[in-house]
């Protein structure tokens, strides 16, 4: 168990390192000169050189990369003398567009993304998992057919299309809901809810559909398992057969998937935030892409990768507590 954890954590650090290296190398090789970009209109070659030196852009790749890495762990200082700017660890650099520290931009926007993710997750777990279980129990009934049909539609409709349809109907035509804005909960809980409910629904619907399909298929597969027949042969109450012997094996893969999906969403729901104009991490990512703001793109990629990889490790750890076959290697 301890060895397993150590291996997993080492693997996680390795993957993270590779993500940083890949992303950095690609930006280093491909992006247009940021110094020119920062310099703006009234630019002279001397000014560009000055910026290059300040940002360390004149140094070779590996030096820049090491500089970036050490910035992540111990912080870094841009420029010299009076112009020097200190960037404390974990330093993700400064936006070329606004000059704001990338980390600070994150902190300002993370709340919106987290609100979106948590609200949607509650909805989709309920609709997807409960819906999938119910559909499996009532296989072949009208409920099963309706739920399964809805889920099929849900996995097929791109969420930005659904977002536009809902926004057109509920906001433009019927006027039931406001145009979504990230109203803080503290400011006005009612408005907060009304503003987030549509993004939650749209985001949750796609995931709920996937989870419904997965849950239903898993439950049906598990009910066919021989050990469920054994449980019935023991004369267990149907409730116990269902809860102990069918549900736990059927829901284990769902737990795995949930950890990864949720971690991914914390790193920003790019499409939903863009469509609804919610100022979260995802919106920040798509804006920085449009404006070619490299430090921000780098930062978002890294933080998203970090979240997904941490999510993966957490899932693995949870998995070991759920599934004894992972916890205890084959054969004692």
């Amino acid at each position, binding site marked *: 168990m301890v060895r397993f954890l150590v291996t997993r954590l080492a693997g996680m650090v390795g993957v993270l390192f590779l993500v940083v290296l890949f992303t950095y190398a690609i930006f280093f090789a491909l992006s247009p000169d940021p110094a020119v970009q920062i310099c703006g209109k009234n630019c002279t070659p001397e000014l560009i050189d000055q910026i290059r030196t300040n940002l360390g852009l004149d140094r070779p790749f590996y030096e820049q990369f090491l500089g970036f890495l050490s910035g992540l762990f111990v912080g870094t200082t841009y420029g010299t003398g009076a112009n020097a700017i200190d960037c404390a660890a974990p330093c993700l650099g400064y936006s070329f567009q606004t000059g704001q520290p990338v980390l600070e931009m994150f902190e300002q926007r993370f709340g919106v993304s987290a609100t979106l993710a948590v609200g949607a997750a509650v909805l989709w777990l309920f609709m997807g998992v409960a819906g999938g279980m119910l559909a499996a129990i009532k296989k072949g009934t009208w409920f099963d057919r309706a739920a399964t049909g809805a889920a099929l539609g849900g996995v097929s409709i791109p969420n930005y299309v659904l977002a536009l349809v809902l926004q057109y109907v509920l906001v433009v035509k019927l006027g039931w809901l406001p145009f979504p804005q990230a109203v803080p909960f503290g400011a006005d809980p009612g408005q907060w809810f009304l503003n987030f409910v549509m993004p939650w629904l749209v985001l949750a619907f796609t995931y709920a559909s996937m989870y419904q399909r997965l849950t239903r298929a898993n439950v049906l597969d598990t009910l066919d*398992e*021989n*050990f469920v*027949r*054994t*449980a*019935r*042969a*023991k*004369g*267990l*109450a149907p409730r*116990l057969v269902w809860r*102990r*012997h069918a549900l*736990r*094996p059927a829901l284990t893969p769902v737990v795995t998937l949930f950890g990864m999906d949720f971690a991914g969403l914390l790193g920003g729901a790019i499409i939903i935030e863009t469509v609804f104009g919610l100022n979260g991490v995802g919106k920040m990512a798509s804006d920085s892409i449009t404006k070619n703001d490299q430090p921000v793109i780098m930062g978002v990629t890294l933080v998203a990768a970090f979240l997904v990889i941490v999510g993966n490790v957490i899932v693995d750890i949870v998995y070991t507590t*759920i*599934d*004894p*076959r992972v916890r*205890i290697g*084959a*054969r*004692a």
Partner: protein
Amino acid sequence: MSALLEVEDLTVTFRTAHGPVDVVDGLSFTLERGASLGIVGESGSGKSMTSLAVMGLLPPTASLRGRVSLDGAELTALPESKVRRLRGDRMAMIFQDPLSSLNPYYSVGMQIEEAYRAHRAGVTRRQARKVAVEAMERVHIADAARRVDHYPHQFSGGMRQRVMIAMALSTEPDLLIADEPTTALDVTVQAQILDLLQEVRRETGTALVLISHDLAVVSEIAEDVVVMRHGLAVEQAPAERLFSDPRHPYTRALLDAVPRIDDEIGELRAIDSIDVVGGKA
């Protein structure tokens, strides 16, 4: 007093895309307390469906006609909740594939305890655990007190089948149905499991229905044999008579398919003597 198990004109019908199909067709037999019966046939002969019908575990697409009585109680007339109380208590069953028949998520001890507690109201976990350890000892699982907390994947195939038998015996049932209990196992282990079933029957007085495609396996244990084909019982006779004087051509064909039956039994016996039972899995 009536026989332990009476099956009368049992017919099991499956609804299929091509209309109803009788997988068991008018089968009748009786089994006295402590007796043993073998049901032999190829796959698809309806032998497994017979056992599921007795247990009340037929799949929902199957329907049943005829009468099944356990110790005078007509199972086929009882509501499911009543049959459930008998299932796992008075009648128990073990299956072909002991790995997939055990739930990988729970320790074997928990799975045995569960079988026991399902039929003994008010039993504490500690008492149930004691029963589980005893049951595992009875089927010769060495170091049962420790092994009780292990998970199915930590046991070998033969040991898993022992666990299944321990689970079935924990409630001291009157009837044990073993559906191809040795088919998924290695030849040496097969003999051990058959010996164990014999021993258990001797010691506990449980009646046994042994289902197999293999006449050699059935001949080891069964006092009476039913030969099934296409859902019909083609021949029913005491084992000795069936082997010495098979009347139905199909029975003869089955016997011919198992050449040198005596040799093979002799061989299996020989293996018995190298008793590795209870060894480390």
